[in-house]
């Protein structure tokens, strides 16, 4: 049992770096924000840490856990600022990264360009060697060719080398030997092989993932090594952990080896936190709704588990859905499944060629930001409309740190939107809100109906700076009955870092129909994967008792090209157990696609093991008992506009003054330093014991 101390979570965002500290003994959470430092992101982390010490009085030597989420990996891909990386592939397949999957994602766009290859052709070498689908050697590895290629790449000054041979997930010997040869020639290079990174079939996806890992490797491992050293200098001795795209954390040394796994770390942390606080409110079927400055995102939590997908694409712009996405760099790492639309507080309202009102996807960001920020922004945003409709306070923005310029916002909005549309200022503001709402509704509907689910069966968890402003109205439109607004929703991703478990995912391709004689060897493979996981967790001091193991299998009907993941109970894989697994597959297929093919052959494609090192859940301090009226938190009210409903005189509450079991009735508005919560008429809201706000529809 670890000693009680402080847990620290730090989330680097585009504008701010958020730090959250949990005092484990008192159960108290403190937060602070510092400006991000894009030229050297670790600077902001250290600034935040120092302020945590000087302003919040945190004894850094008593930090027991330090978890970090960062956009550094993602930005490295977007900015194409990765390391100079060479690539070795099987001869005949040199153009995998150019050919990609040969799709066209925009049907009528003659100017459509594919993303440029991650690694250019002249740094890619085909090596004579071949392994077949059964893992047999068709052609032995040409070691001399490997040596010649690596020496040529060394001359070209590569810092990293990615190796991806066909069917290496069946037999990694050629990749391993090639890496050995390369290491002897380039001892300081970051060398990564596909059978380590993604031992799964589909050569383009595997090569792309391995290439990304190579491109990120030198920079990310350096960044993490330096940060770890700086934390040590600041007396923080807790291991540095990184949030992965899958919502679990891993040790910085593993993150340095597998940087392709931390690309979506910030958004993943948000959904983990949503699941955590939804769980505290007793809810396990959740839609996590995160609305920030540029985009709104939505993820699903089913039965307490965050919905994952097997991979993601980076660099193709905003994708409303993983199913409809396309065109970016593929990364085959388990990733929290998020839909996204270009609707955030900073999204710009504009009139198109036909004088129709549009909102987004362009955003004013934080600098210059909305007109009301007075930082030189001259384009009307959602935040400006919210301000003029009383939906956010003018004098209390960011806890009063920023005063908003209402007059300027009013003039600009009148000039740019209301006048050309020949409508009143109020109507123009309302119109911006309604258009933004429509695009978020579209996203939330697609997230659920795409999976055959009804939003009414879910509770919405609204967070991000703008999530609580829109959350309850959106839930109302979708026929949902409950909304949870967690504590400090504007810093939720950082809080997710405090609640996340250590997690290692392993997935290996088996690919084939299963005969009864194969079961023992499948069992063995599972055991090998689990041993790898226990090793990794053990290295970082996680006791065997707090390790949870889950097995699952990716399965498909023989003629299909895509798989479904089906859970498999632990224990020896007997014929009955395998039968149960197949039956489970049929059922899952039927639930998702409305049919089963009872006579069709079922194939086992990948073996999957997830090892979780459980972190003790934070114990939050309970708030003092309140009353049915919440009078103690009440301040002077104002008029507020609710979408589709109109203007209402609203009671106004200070969130920090709310107590346990306080209940209040809409229309109402709750203000806090990091975000404002709108409670429409027909909804009531209760504050729970730890400060979660729980809104329900009346009647």
């Amino acid at each position, binding site marked *: 049992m670890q000693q009680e101390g402080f847990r620290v979570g730090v989330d680097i965002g585009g504008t701010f770096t958020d730090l959250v500290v949990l005092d484990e003994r008192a159960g108290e959470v403190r937060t602070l924000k510092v400006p991000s430092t894009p030229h050297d992101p670790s600077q902001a982390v250290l600034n935040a840490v120092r302020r945590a010490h000087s302003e919040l009085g945190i004894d850094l030597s008593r930090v027991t856990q330090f978890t970090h989420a960062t956009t550094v990996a993602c930005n490295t891909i977007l900015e194409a600022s990765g390391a100079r990386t060479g690539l070795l592939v099987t001869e005949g397949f040199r153009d995998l990264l*150019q050919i990609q999957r040969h799709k066209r994602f925009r049907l009528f766009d003659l100017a459509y360009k594919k993303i440029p290859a991650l690694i250019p052709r002249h740094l890619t070498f085909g090596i004579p060697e071949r392994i077949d*689908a059964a893992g047999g050697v068709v052609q032995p590895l040409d070691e001399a060719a490997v040596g010649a290629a690596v020496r040529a790449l060394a001359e070209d000054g590569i810092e990293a080398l990615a190796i991806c041979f066909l069917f290496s997930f069946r037999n990694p010997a050629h990749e391993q030997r090639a890496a050995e040869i390369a290491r002897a020639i380039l001892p300081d290079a970051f060398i990564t092989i596909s059978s380590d990174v993604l031992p799964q079939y589909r050569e383009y996806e595997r090569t792309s993932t391995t290439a990304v890992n190579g491109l990120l490797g030198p920079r990310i491992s350096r960044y993490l090594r330096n940060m770890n050293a700086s934390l040590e200098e600041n007396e923080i001795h807790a291991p540095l952990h990184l949030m992965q795209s899958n919502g679990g954390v891993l040790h910085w040394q593993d993150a340095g080896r597998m940087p392709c796994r931390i690309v979506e770390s910030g958004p993943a942390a948000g959904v983990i936190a949503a699941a955590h606080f939804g769980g505290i409110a007793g809810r396990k079927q959740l839609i996590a709704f995160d609305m920030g400055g540029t985009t709104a995102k939505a993820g699903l939590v089913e039965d307490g588990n965050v919905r994952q997908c097997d991979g993601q694409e980076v660099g193709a712009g905003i994708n409303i859905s993983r199913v409809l996405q396309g065109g970016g760099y593929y990364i085959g790492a388990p990733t929290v499944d998020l839909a996204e639309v270009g609707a955030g507080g900073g999204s710009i309202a504009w009139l198109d*060629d036909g004088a129709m009102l*549009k909102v987004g996807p362009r955003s004013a960001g934080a600098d210059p930001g909305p007109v009301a920020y007075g930082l030189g922004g001259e384009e009307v945003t959602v935040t400006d409309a919210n301000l003029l409709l009383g939906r956010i306070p003018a004098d209390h923005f960011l806890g009063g740190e920023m005063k908003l310029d209402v007059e300027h916002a009013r003039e600009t909005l009148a000039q740019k939107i209301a006048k050309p549309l020949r*409508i009143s200022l109020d109507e123009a503001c309302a119109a911006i809100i309604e258009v933004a709402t429509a695009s978020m509704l579209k996203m939330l509907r697609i997230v659920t*109906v795409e999976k055959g689910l009804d939003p009414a069966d879910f509770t919405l968890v609204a967070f991000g700076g703008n999530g609580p402003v829109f959350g309850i109205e959106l839930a109302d439109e979708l026929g949902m009955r409950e909304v949870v607004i967690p504590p400090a929703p504007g810093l939720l991703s950082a809080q997710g870092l405090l609640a996340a478990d250590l997690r290692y995912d392993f997935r290996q391709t088996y690919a084939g129909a299963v005969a009864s004689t194969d079961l023992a060897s499948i069992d063995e493979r599972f055991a090998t994967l689990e041993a790898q996981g226990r090793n990794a967790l053990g290295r970082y001091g996680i006791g065997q008792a707090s390790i949870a193991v889950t097995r699952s299998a990716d399965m498909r009907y023989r003629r299909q090209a895509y798989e479904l993941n089906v859970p498999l109970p632990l224990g020896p894989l007997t014929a009955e157990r395998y039968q149960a697994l197949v039956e489970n597959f049929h059922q899952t297929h039927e639930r998702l696609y409305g049919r089963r093919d009872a006579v069709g052959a079922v194939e086992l494609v990948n073996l999957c093991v997830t090892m979780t090192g459980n972190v003790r859940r934070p114990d939050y301090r309970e708030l003092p008992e309140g009353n049915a009226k919440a009078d103690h938190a009440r301040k002077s009210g104002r008029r507020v506009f609710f979408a589709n409903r109109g203007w209402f005189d609203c009671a106004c509450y200070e969130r920090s003054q709310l107590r346990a079991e306080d209940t209040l009735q809409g229309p109402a508005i709750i203000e806090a330093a990091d975000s404002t919560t709108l409670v429409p008429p027909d909804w009531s809201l209760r504050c729970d014991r730890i400060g979660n706000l729980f809104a329900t529809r009346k009647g």
Partner: protein
Amino acid sequence: MSEALAYQVGTQPRREVDPVTTEIVRNCLIAATEEMKTILMRTAYNMIIYEALDFTVGLFDAEGNTLSIGIGLPMFIRGMSETVKAKIRHYGLARMKPGDILLTNDAYITGSHLNHMTFSVPIFHDGIVVGFSCCMAHWPDVGGTLHGLTTDIYAEGLQMPIVKAYREGQPNEDVFDIIRMNVRLPDRAMGDLRAQIAAVRAGERRFLEMIEKYGRDQVVGSLAAIMDQSEAIARERVREIPDGVYEAESFMDDDGVSIGKRIPIRVRVEVRGERMTVDLSDVAAQVAGFYNSGYTAGLSCCQVAFKCLTSPLDLPINDGQFRAIDVILPPGKVVSAVRPSAMRMWMLFPMTVIDTIFKALAPAIQNKVIAGHHADLVVTRVSGRRPEDNSLFLFSGLIGGGWGAKHDSDGRCATVAINDGDTHNSPAEQIEAKFPLLVERYALRQDSGGAGEHRGGLGTEQIVQARSQIRFHAQIDRVKCRPWGLFGGVAGFGNAVAIHRFGEKEQQFNNGKAFNIVLEAGDAYIKRSGGGGGFGSPLDRDAAVVADDVIQGYVSKDAAEKNYGVAFLPGTTNVDPSATAARRAEMRAKGLPVDDPVPDEQAAKPHGHVHHHHEQEVMSDEERLVIAMSGRCCS
């Protein structure tokens, strides 16, 4: 932008519709069609629907005009609207009742092949038809012959005239019985039918919800406003095209019957102010083989080209924007074929028709067009039995090719042809795990992109070795008639098919047609997709860029010297500037290089064409099913 704004806001009386409701209605339409798409993909029985996206869902007004459609493939831009209009003509709104579902697959209405079963629900509100919700999906089998080339529609399967599949909510069992008796996979057909009905009902539901929420007049007004805006913007963009008459000609290799007999595609485009007229009167007459398509497909060609050139990204697909284009297309052409012409491969020729419209307009809008592309899916079909269990397999694979260059950039490499879209290739690791095949090579084709100031995109080459006996089939066009260049750019390589028997020399197939070729273990088949045409004279391409192409291996040193006039310092890839200038001047003086996309070999000798009287094989039921299911648009 400000000009268009003034036009709309200042000088025209505004309709009594609220711009906000209009934007919300627009979003609702998109969400509704997305939902229809999702439901169809989740519940359909056949892979073609959810992997090749061979379907269309959509919402239409009471006259059958497109309000919003979700399409998987560009050529579906037109099909369903014409089908709804035909259904309205057939029954009249008065003879439609709530709960009716109308069905047809009439190839001369849909313009495509018989696999496209199209269902439509008239949407009633207060007893009045306010719109239609429709779904077309490609059924894997609709009966018909399995023996290669067809020469009339009767050989292609079940023809379903316009009928009511449901009458006032009750299934019309007679229709279902007819379907079940005429298709090889009745259960799957019924499964797809149910999925399509679920999709059209979802569209109906969302449309009615929208009317309940915003009121019928507001919604109808908003829909009209959306169409009017699209029209105004489209007209504005046509006005930007200089007035004039623009013409172009291209050729298909042949119709599969008269081998080597070129088929001319001639188009004439007239632009006058805010109107564009595309005249396809001089496109070849309908042909004997199954490459015909109907009038609707001819319209689609024009609208796809129009959309690519005027609003590729910013307007949703609705009929407002297409009010700005007129099409002249007499019946009996290869893209307005009449009964009983054969239609199975309907989507192949239209790709070249679209490219030819770009070519015609090139002098007018140099900055918007692209040079010719490979214009074929380059599909091959391989069948055989797995050695381990003697089970039958059939593998139908396609590869991407090169696209034409543009005024400011090189063409795309290795990308699927224009009539397909979000369709992926098969990973070698999947092919080899499922079939006794070994992919030896899948790579860009050096020098396949047409030379130009901007180079055409590169085609690809795939070499696949048989590891046990297989049969191999290919029907590929644009082998001889290669993707043309523009403004002095040169043609790319054509598509090609070959086999390489173990220990022998590679053998090419004349005109890309290979029927029922038996390959033994160790033999390989090879397919090569064409490259795009170049744009601008190759002599104007920056020599340093040519040198980089040589370093990357996209262009050989020989081709760099011969086609681009670049001279290198001996033994290096470093450009010799003065020698290059001299060589280029000399080539210019001789009028080199010359673009020659259509080789002058009219009526090439019919060379080993056993295709349409090959032996009648005895097939097992299993083989029939597998082969029946292998067809898809343009395969």
